[in-house]
């Protein structure tokens, strides 16, 4: 009834090719932005920020990054944890070396450094494909974690081998360190998430994205119609690395504040982000958000319901949580292999016709 194209006249090409061509969608998008920027910061507390919003926002950026590589360009990567570690350690070294520069630029620079590293590890993708590439990126994962554990320079030779985020401010408001207000950390991450999503969305529907998708769908055909596989694949690795690096930097500096590479950026992290992308929907920006929300919020919700609400023993709840989340992943893959994003698409199709489906 409300959700339809009819009556919404487009008079220019820009109008016609906008991200949300349907009026209702557009207003919903503005409403979400408005709530996220103008309402949420006033009502959240430490718990909501640290247990729900920060992980959700930061994993969303990581999922967007990985989605560009896996979902749009078809290059399977298991090195996300390692690349997040690159972002985190780059951010740490920059924060310590240039304390007078705003943390905002440090995070962007960390993304740039990660893009470079990711590009380097993307080189094998020119020769190998599919599972073999997954194994090559797996090597990157283990190599990077080993490197940050082994070489003292990366953690400034601290006794524990940990990196700790010193306090840094943006416009005088602390963003990292223990004195950070919940709303400041939240808004800081939100800005990065919104910017990343807009950039990613526009990249993927432009020429770069079309090249990536051509490579994904059939690389030989893509090469024949004039897509340069070298440039397309490596640019996908670089762009993906940029976003993953930003998420790693935020994960370390804003969310955790202290990081141990083996634990925070181990192989589990790579799988977690990959699951987010697969459950959310390959090749969809919305899917990245949905997947991150699913895997971040569901365990927290289950824990609160089972332990806080029903008063069950914590170990039982923790084991059940594994089973339920695992079961839901399987269920989703069986019933909807294209992920949550596909459910959303189907729902939108239905909404267009509602309430007169014939």
């Amino acid at each position, binding site marked *: 009834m409300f959700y339809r194209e009819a009556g919404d006249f487009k008079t220019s090409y820009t109008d016609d090719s906008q991200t949300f061509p349907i009026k209702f969608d557009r207003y919903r998008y503005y409403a979400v932005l408005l709530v996220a920027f103008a309402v949420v910061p006033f009502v959240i507390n430490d718990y909501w920020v640290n247990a729900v919003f920060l992980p959700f926002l930061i994993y969303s950026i990581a999922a967007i990054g990985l989605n560009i590589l896996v979902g749009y360009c078809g290059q399977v990567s298991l090195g996300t944890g390692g690349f997040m570690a690159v972002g985190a350690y780059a951010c740490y070294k920059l924060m310590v070396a240039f304390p007078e520069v705003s943390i905002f630029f440090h995070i962007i620079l960390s993304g740039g450094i990660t893009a470079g590293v990711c590009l380097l590890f993307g080189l094998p993708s020119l020769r190998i494909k599919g599972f073999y590439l997954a194994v090559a990126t797996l090597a990157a994962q283990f190599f990077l974690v080993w490197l940050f554990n082994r070489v003292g320079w990366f953690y400034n030779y601290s006794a524990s081998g940990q990196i700790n985020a010193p306090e840094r401010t943006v416009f005088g408001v602390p963003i990292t360190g223990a004195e950070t207000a919940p709303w400041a950390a939240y808004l800081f991450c939100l800005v990065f998430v919104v910017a990343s999503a807009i950039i990613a969305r526009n990249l993927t529907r432009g020429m770069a994205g079309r090249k990536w998708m051509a490579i994904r769908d059939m690389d030989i055909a893509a090469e024949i119609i004039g897509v340069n596989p070298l440039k397309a694949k490596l640019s996908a690795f670089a762009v993906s690395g940029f976003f993953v690096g930003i998420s790693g930097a935020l994960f370390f500096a804003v969310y955790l504040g202290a990081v141990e590479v083996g634990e925070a950026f181990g192989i589990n992290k790579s799988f977690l982000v990959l699951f987010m992308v697969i459950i959310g929907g390959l090749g969809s920006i919305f899917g990245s958000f949905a997947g991150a929300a699913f895997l971040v919020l569901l365990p927290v919700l289950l824990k609160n319901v089972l332990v806080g609400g029903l008063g069950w023993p*914590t170990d039982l709840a923790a084991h059940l949580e594994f089973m339920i989340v695992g079961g839901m992943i399987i269920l989703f893959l069986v019933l909807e292999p294209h992920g949550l994003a596909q459910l959303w698409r189907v729902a939108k199709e239905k909404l267009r016709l509602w309430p007169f489906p014939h």
Partner: protein
Amino acid sequence: MKTKLMTALVAAVMAAGPAMADLKIVDTSYRTGPYGANGIPFSDGYQDYFTLLNERDGGIGGEMINLVECETGYNTEKGVECYEATKGDGSLIYQPLSTGITYQLIPKVSADKIPLHTMGYGRTSAKNGEVFEWVFNYPANYWDGASHAITHILEQNDGDISDKSIALVYHNSAYGKEPIRTLEGLAEKHGYDLTLLPVDHPGQEQKSQWLQIRRESPDYVIMWGWGVMNQVAIQEAVNIRFPMENFIGIWWSGSENDVKAAGDRADGYKALTFHNIGSNYPIYDDIQTHVVDTGKAAGAGDQIGSVLYNRGMYAAMLAAEAIKTAQEIHGTAAITPEMMRDGMENLEMTEEKMAALGLPGFGPEFKVTCENHGGNGFGAVSQWDAQAGEFKLITEYFQSDQDILQPLIEEDSMAYAKENDIELRCQ
């Protein structure tokens, strides 16, 4: 039903329970994952002691203890979530039983003004109370442990180990890396040769490390392990026929769960400890009557009297004593976290106190001061007796090498103070 579920859901998502006037203690335990085998007994002991106080004495000073459990899985992200979810309503103390989570929490508790007690783990330099106002690590820390191990080796070699080689097998994390600096410092002093062998989380794969030990055959192996890593390491040592009496674990690598899997040949394995072991104490009768027989024992109730159960109970006992001290200082039974900190800073454990609690000679005597949050560094060596199926103390309590440790603690804590612009206290 549906509305009921929804209300439960909303209430649950709001997380924090209703504010109560009780003494709120949070047990950030881990009963799952690769470290669960060690997390369960500690948590059981911790909870049972508070249950005992509630059942037998009606709480502490007339205030009941409200014990909240939160599962961290030894994972820092979950640990942070637990902390944020439970820190409201005047949580008195946090004991995360994880060095990784400790590092996360040190800046947070300092900002939120909640005391953190990391007994025998965590950041060693937190011993310096001038810098770390809210963090305590009495009665012993990792660097003490490293020194204890070396002192024990020295004693066995009549004070000369300059021709000996020692290998450190450690969990490749903040936890395992803590003793390296001390062991290097002691190596300079005593002239032994140190080899470092890191084992990655979770530690199920140690073939290459033990192959190296077999090849280089060091005279002694010291281990900083936790969880499944302990069992695997002891099994591997048995497999390469390493003499078990030359294999010394830190106190976190010396529980029954760690050695039993390796069978009889683990006999003679040594582990450090900073408290007594065994269940031959009057308090166990009370635990039996008031906790076990009433069906209120935590977990499966099958860990009572094990090494880590004792340690959990010891941690709870020290917390309870600090609460009593705080209640005396401030003259009120319902204390706040800030009062709790004063109680911890003025805590004095004497032999009479421990005997009165039903734990005579259970731990070393120590007194916490404003400058010293870490006790005096006394520890002992225990040895596994496979026939009897228990660890036995084989030495008296002895002090760690303070000449080496004190400058290291000073250096590390001052670096932290400088990084974080902390003004020194106690001046």
